[in-house]
């Protein structure tokens, strides 16, 4: 049977990164094809190219035997490519039928829509009532609306982007039944996921990506979960020679049985998280994005308070119910993942941004007034010590490139002499030499006796920096193990949600 779609040598370059490096894959009719990979492996870029959102720099897309150039998402839909996104675009105040009508282009398509919705939902086992208001529906039901919306156009290829990340296990089972049925009736499915068990249970074929490249095509049923994990993470271990000898003292940051409810519908609840970090030690927290890292960061920095003061202790002082200000007073310093708008104010100067978190530890205010000379001096020291490329301390944060702003934000906290530093994605979007500078500063800070927590999706970075590593998945934190004893296979399994939580 000729393939439905064939991608040959798709290459896409963004400034400073090769997102897709000569990616090839073939999807047969009626096939459920998994696209497996870590965050940043290039899955989303590839899918955006197939669905017409981005255009490839090189390579061909062959659709049903003829080469096509997919101009835009409308063109992709006309060809028969449907996509269900991770986050839905539905109007809560409208009914199911009204929402679906809004997504269709022309009046002609809306004729007899209600009956067609019922027909499609019955024949694929996707129970949706067209007259219900979306507001009252569960996440699983909302996802069904999106799928029905796609199916009304009779797609030949349905792309599902991490569909189970928002579903309960039972809802996921229902979804799998639907997808199998769809495939058996002639619709191919491209299934994007990093959940290994799911891919093994559902998919006929898997394409595994790592760092923009296809590393393997395989039949997932024939592989063990561990084999898939090591393919996804890669086997190339860093030489252990780069590890420093760690000097550990008394525990400085202790988290005990910390549970937090999710603050928004797409958030992750933290479930009974416990760990401790000693002075001089670096704890790495690995995990795929959206598994509770943001919530853990907010809980540690004090932006969200813990239910009990005792759940978090800094140098033996309970700080669970202390806000960010009080935690800084005790020596806590934090670098959140998001730069503009969270760690920094885009429209303010670097000096003012230094003041943002440095006011207390830098003693930058007197009589309620900002000590401008002292603040500027501190900002200047960050700029020179961390080689921040900026026109000066008066440069607005938004005028800096992402990497340079990151250096400034990491440097800002370093200069405040932290007792405990929690840093999320320290080298995200930073070029290699800057990343090295940041890494060295983190190691030096640990050597001087601070306790450090590095939350990162980059496993190489954690392997390089951390003494111990723990993995966060669905809000659960695994027990930290010494990096020297951890295998990539074991970590990959934990990241894929195969629980081994003691």
């Amino acid at each position, binding site marked *: 049977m000729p393939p439905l779609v064939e991608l040959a040598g798709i290459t896409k370059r963004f400034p400073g990164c090769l997102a897709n490096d000569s990616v090839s894959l073939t999807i047969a009719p009626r096939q459920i094809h998994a696209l497996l990979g870590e965050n940043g492996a290039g899955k989303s870029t590839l899918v955006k190219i197939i669905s017409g959102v981005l255009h490839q720099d090189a390579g061909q897309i062959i659709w049903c035997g003829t080469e096509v150039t997919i101009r835009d998402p409308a063109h992709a839909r006309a060809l028969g490519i449907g996509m269900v996104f991770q986050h839905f675009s539905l109007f809560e105040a409208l009914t199911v039928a009204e929402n679906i009508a809004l997504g269709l282009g022309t009046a002609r398509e809306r004729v007899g829509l209600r009956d067609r919705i019922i027909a499609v939902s019955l024949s694929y086992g996707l129970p949706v009532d067209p007259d219900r208001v979306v507001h009252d529906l569960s996440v699983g039901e909302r996802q069904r609306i999106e799928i029905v919306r796609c199916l009304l156009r009779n797609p030949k290829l349905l792309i599902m982007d991490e569909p189970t990340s928002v579903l309960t296990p039972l809802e996921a089972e229902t979804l799998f039944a639907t997808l199998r049925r769809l495939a058996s009736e002639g619709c191919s499915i491209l299934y994007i996921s990093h959940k290994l068990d799911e891919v093994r249970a559902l998919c006929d074929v898997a394409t595994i990506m790592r760092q923009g490249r296809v590393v393997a095509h395989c039949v997932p049923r024939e592989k063990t979960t561990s084999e898939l994990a090591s393919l996804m993470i890669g086997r190339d271990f860093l030489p252990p020679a780069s590890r420093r000898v760690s000097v550990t003292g008394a525990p400085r940051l202790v988290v005990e049985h910390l549970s937090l409810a999710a603050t928004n519908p797409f958030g992750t609840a933290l479930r009974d998280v416990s760990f401790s970090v000693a002075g001089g030690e670096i704890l790495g927290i690995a995990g795929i994005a959206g598994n509770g890292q943001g919530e853990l960061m907010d809980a540690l*920095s004090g932006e969200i308070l813990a239910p009990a003061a005792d759940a978090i202790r800094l140098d033996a002082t309970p700080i669970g119910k202390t806000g*960010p*200000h009080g935690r800084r007073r005790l020596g806590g310093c934090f670098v959140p993942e998001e730069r503009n*708008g969270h760690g920094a*104010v885009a429209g303010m100067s670097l000096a003012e941004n230094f003041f943002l978190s440095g006011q207390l530890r830098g003693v930058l205010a007197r009589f*309620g007034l*900002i000590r401008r000379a002292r603040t500027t001096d501190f900002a200047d020291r960050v700029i020179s010590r961390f080689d921040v490329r900026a026109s000066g301390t008066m440069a607005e944060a938004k005028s800096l490139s992402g990497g340079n702003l990151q250096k400034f934000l990491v440097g800002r906290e370093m200069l405040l002499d932290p007792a405990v530093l929690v840093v999320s994605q320290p080298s995200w979007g930073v070029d290699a030499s800057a990343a090295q500078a940041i890494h060295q500063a983190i190691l030096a800070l640990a050597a001087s006796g601070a306790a450090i927590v590095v939350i990162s999706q980059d496993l190489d970075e954690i392997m390089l920096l951390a003494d111990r590593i723990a993995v966060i998945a669905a809000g659960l934190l695994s027990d930290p193990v010494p990096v020297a004893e951890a295998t990539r296979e074991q970590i990959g399994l934990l990241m894929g949600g195969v629980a081994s939580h003691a």
Partner: protein
Amino acid sequence: MLSLSPRGTASDFWRYAAPVLALALTALITGALFAAMGRPALLTVTTFLITPLLATGGLEALLVKAAPLVMMGVGLSIAYRANVWNIGAEGQYILGALAAGGLALALPDAPGWVIVPLLIAAGLVGGAGYALIVAWLRTRFNANEILTSLMLAYVAQYLLVYLVTGPWRDPDGFGFPQTALFSDAAGGPRLIDGSNLHLGLMFAPLIALAAWVMLGRSVLGFQLRVMGQAPRAARFAGFDENRLIWLAMAISGGLAGLAGMFEVTGNQGQLTINLGPGYGFTAIIVGFLGRLNPLGVIPAGLLLALTYLGGDAAQMNLGLSSAITGIFQGILLFCLLGSDVLISHRLHWKRRP
């Protein structure tokens, strides 16, 4: 289909040139309006911007009208910079005037050095207290402050009418809806003997200067600006959002109350059902025209005060409706906000998807 997309960077030049451009556009549009009503188009510029200054006592009238506008415009600028949208300065202005007016009526024999500081305190407390209702509704129930502050402005208006036509009505006032006259001492000293220039005229620029220092140099001003620009960063820094909302409302309300207090005691000398031509709403235009910068508010307040005098002149000299002032001010705000949108966004045609 017309569509707006962000430019990414906004020109600094146009940020400050926009008020001038808006004023020019307003002159053009009102000129066309005059022409449509059969009067020479150029008359708008002369009637609104030049004639009032040439009249006897024109400058004095201008300053007296500008003082409350500047005071309130400064307060609103501070609140707006913190992303707290207090639209009800008019109500806080009335409450400040009522608190001060009530006190002046209760203490008719107090000497000036006693009554004037008391009146200032009453004005501040009256306005701030009224504004804090809005802050409480926002922080306790997450009620939108735009709606609650605006609605409370109408409540204040009815409270004023009730007091002036009811319990506070002057028994010797032939049934007019007004209170007895305040004592001379309550009017405070004159900046120039025999003139109408009350103490508020000296306070207004000083308040603007203090607010400018506060916003730019103080920790509190920094916190307010961060909350307005990046609420997430404010939480990261550990600023207390609710406290800043309370403060922003208290400052803008307090300054509105102060403006109301100076207007009734220093200028009108009694409470009537009409405490002014809607200064509280015009102050919103003043704040935006002054680029939400307390020092920029001073020229903006003078300009808007001029439009009130110009509106009077247009009524008297040209026989136009009193609505003309509101029309002029409305078109000015429209042109200014329109320019602001076009400074940060690009307008272009977009094919329907």
